[in-house]
């Protein structure tokens, strides 16, 4: 499951962000924040993509910049959110 998630997220990051840094290759450990690939707005974009693509809800405790440091960390956050089964939990309905 993690491999599938990783492939989807990698593709999204490649399509939407990595074109800004053609000098870098996206791997699990590439520092997305330190290299300036993801800024605060970028984190919001990735959050919206993750919630839509994987039918999960990222809660307040997920939305810290360290959770978007690199591809491996992002995948771990998605796996954790999926296991919490938050997809069907409405915040306010």
């Amino acid at each position, binding site marked *: 499951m993690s491999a599938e998630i990783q492939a989807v997220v990698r593709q999204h990051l490649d399509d*939407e962000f990595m074109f*800004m840094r053609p000098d870098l290759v996206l791997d699990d450990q590439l520092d997305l*924040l330190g290299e300036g690939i993801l*800024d*605060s*707005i970028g*984190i*919001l*974009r990735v*959050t*919206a993509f993750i*919630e*839509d693509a994987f039918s999960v*809800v*990222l*809660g*307040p405790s997920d*939305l*810290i*910049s360290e959770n978007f440091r690199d591809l491996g960390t992002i995948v771990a956050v998605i796996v954790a959110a999926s296991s919490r089964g*938050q997809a069907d*939990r*409405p*915040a*306010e*309905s």
Partner: protein
Amino acid sequence: MTVSVRSQLQADARRFAAARCNSGLEQLDREQAFNRAGWTAAAEHGLLGMRVPVALGGTARPLGEQLEILLGFGEGCEDNGLILALGAHVWACQSALLDYASDDLKAAVLPGLARGHVIASHAVSEPGAGSDVSNMATRARTTASGYVLDGDKTWVTNAPIAGLHVVFASTDPSAGSRGLSAFVVPAASSGVRVTTIEKMGLCTAQMGSIELREVEVPSRNRLGEEGQGFTILQHCMAWERAFLLAPMLGSMTRVMRRCVEQARRRRQFGQAIGEFDSVSNLIVEMRMRVELGRALLDKVAAQAATGRAFHELASMLKLHISEAWQQTCVDAVQLHGARGFTRELGLERELRDAVGGRIFSGTSEIQRRIIAQLMGVRR
């Protein structure tokens, strides 16, 4: 929610607001005075606690019900400044507390906010940094027991009447927007001084500047984690941009109905002015703006109810309603001719108020920038 329930919620709120929130409005507007009676009435009607859990003094209404009530409230309440004050209190401040305060902090502050006994302000903008929060100059220095805040906030709605301020400050200036943190600062804290700012519209909403000089804040008053301030701010702003202006769809409906009456009854050249295309077209455009705004509001509410991010839709909705509101008021003044331009009808006040809608909570220009950023068009 059935159509009849929606209608009933709107109608009840409309009647209550018309009866209890408009008294002395012309004088309040002239004197730039807070509508305390309207605020108290809104609190008694439960408008300030709709998002807050029952255990913390609120009514925890579903979002859909909240919006129906706000639409009716906006139609009945002619005091747009009161609507702004209420919106800042609920959407900006309560959102931060509900989702990022510790349980102890929630128990300490939310009951007072839900009942309206305590008013909250949301202090973000600074003289040198409005929407550019990465350049925020207010600092929060770590101490043994918490933090010491120093800085200046401005254009803060509710600041002069607030019992507490939700203040954003940098705990790590070298980290830019990732170095921001958020704090609950009691207005009575030593080192806090508030001055009032007069405005051209929304005059009953009290706006002010806040000086923070060596203000001690305990660690328990921090919201979320240190450095999570930007995320908290974006969270609050999404709620505010999405729903603070929802009552203005009701306000626009009220203004539109006045225009319909004018179009039917005012006669020129032997016929009602509504028979002229140039008049009836203005009213059709008003109706279209309201209906499109309602459709977008429902879409944003549906997304928000899932718990998923809705920042992009929120900015679109804020942009649409604020621009629609101003255009509707400009057209209403025009349609009423000379009387519309005088103070007699109150339409000039509605227009002065509407101008503010395109400025607060991020200008229309900022909303377009955010939407473009979230679409990946620009950085």
